[in-house]
């Protein structure tokens, strides 16, 4: 079991240089079932990354609690793998060494490591690049290695923070298809943050829409599109209906986010 339970989580950052404290997350509660693919969309700065880091155990919520597989999250651990938007491959390691990094930490035997990294290299279509250094790879390939590195540990939960955000549109589509294919095989619990509504609808079983800061959950949209999902899914009528529904909500929130400081000024 590796469901995620986020229970009344609040996150406050101390204000910098005399500014008032920032409430990044306010009273967030959500439950993600074991093996579910959950996407989070919301306007910029609403606390999506903060929420993901809290689940990873990299930051501690100011109040509330997070449980993964029924266990309270107290710190980071190999049971929750993470992929960032920025390119985070270790430049001093080859592609294979990057993928095996977590296995090496656990002192897995060499042949065992090899078996796992070989499998992932094939899965990700990176066979020819095992011994290349990250800087020789395109952005899309680097993110495939980053996903492989997270998968190598066989985590129960995969946390992804806009992993395709820096990629061009074509590469992104290919990566989305690759990710659904992999997920449909492994059924890990995934928490996936994105700006891209199409991406959220295409990938997710469920899409959470967050409000502008302070971040709260505004809506939970269950995506009942059939699987396996393919490129054709994106042109279906149901897909477009979901997309427009979420788009309208996001648009409203983005407007609010922009207007917020203006209103404050007018008042003050």
């Amino acid at each position, binding site marked *: 079991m590796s469901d995620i339970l986020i229970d009344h989580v609040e996150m406050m950052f101390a204000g910098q240089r005399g500014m008032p404290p920032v409430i990044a997350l306010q009273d967030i509660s959500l439950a993600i079932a074991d093996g579910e693919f959950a996407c989070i969309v919301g306007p910029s700065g609403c606390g999506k990354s903060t929420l993901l880091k809290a689940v990873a155990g*990299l930051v501690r919520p100011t109040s509330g609690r997070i449980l993964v597989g029924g266990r309270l999250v107290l710190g980071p651990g190999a049971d929750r*793998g*993470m992929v*960032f938007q920025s390119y*985070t491959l*270790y*430049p001093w390691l080859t592609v294979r060494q990057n993928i095996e*990094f977590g296995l090496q930490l*656990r002192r897995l035997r060499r042949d065992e490591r090899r078996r796992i990294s070989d499998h992932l290299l094939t899965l990700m279509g990176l066979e020819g690049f095992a011994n290349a250094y990250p800087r020789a790879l395109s952005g899309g390939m680097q993110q495939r290695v980053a996903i492989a590195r997270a998968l190598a*540990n066989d985590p129960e939960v995969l946390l992804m923070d806009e992993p395709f955000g820096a990629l061009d549109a074509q590469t992104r589509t290919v990566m989305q298809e690759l990710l659904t294919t992999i997920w449909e095989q492994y059924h890990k619990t995934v928490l996936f943050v994105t700006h891209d509504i199409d991406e959220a609808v295409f990938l997710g079983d469920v899409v959470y829409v967050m409000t502008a800061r302070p971040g709260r959950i505004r809506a939970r949209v269950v995506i009942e599109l059939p699987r396996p999902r393919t490129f054709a899914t994106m042109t279906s009528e149901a897909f477009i209906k979901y997309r427009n529904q979420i788009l309208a909500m996001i648009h409203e929130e983005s407007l609010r986010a922009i207007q917020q400081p203006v209103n404050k000024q007018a008042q003050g």
Partner: protein
Amino acid sequence: MPQRDGTPRAGYQSTTVAQARVRESDVTLPQESWIARYLTPRRSIPSSVYTILSVLGFVGVLAIWSALSYTRLVKPLFLPTPTEALAALWELLVRYGFLKDIWASTYRILAGFAIAAVVGVPLGVLMGSFKLFEALFERLIGVIRYLPASAFIPLFILWIGIGDAQKIAVIVFGSFFPLVLLVMDVAANVPRDYLDIAYTLGASRWQVFWKVLVPASLPGIVDSLRTILGWAWTYLIVAELVAANAGIGYMIIESQRYIETPRIIAGIVTIGILGLVSDTIFKQLYKWLFPYAERVNP
């Protein structure tokens, strides 16, 4: 304007129709102006031009030197000719055992540099990685860094005498503090995401330090060492100011006493050459150790 850096842009490849049309009518694009080719910020220039220009820098200095000295525009007492300086260097080498001086100085520089590195690199990494160490040392070192090494010579003499140790101490003093601060910066600038990723892959604090922070800092550390070794050479004269009986700095100070200007120039040129050699060795070491790195930082 295609081929800005010698490689076609990705966007260009898709405009096949336009390309085809160009090829058909065999239009040649107008030549780029001289300014566009050589004075666009960050734009690379042909490596042959680069080499020629870098040699030209030396030639220029030599030319000005020659012009001022051969014409006797400046008195030979103040500025000897290049040939006189070369002759002085030759004489020093074959008649006055200058090699012994070179070795004495090199030894002092290397010993001082090694001591500074052995203590300074670990300290800098700790300070860049742990706020605790940063808080403890950063301000202190920031202050000491501005104290002139020469001001400490009397103290060094008092503490460790006038032997080689005193000379090495000056080099250590001059290079240790800036090295620590450089290395601290390198370690502190390792991207936070590198550490976070390691934690989510199951790394302990210990492992994050040794398997992420240290290897991520290494190229920057080697680069810092290169910079600092360069600075160490600049302390040579100060180091050999007191009670030396060998060394390039000592030779220069002695020559000053006898107004042997050609020898002074010869000594300065020697230091320059040794500095260049050590710099080149470090650059090669960097390339060899870090094949994955983009390039040596300027």
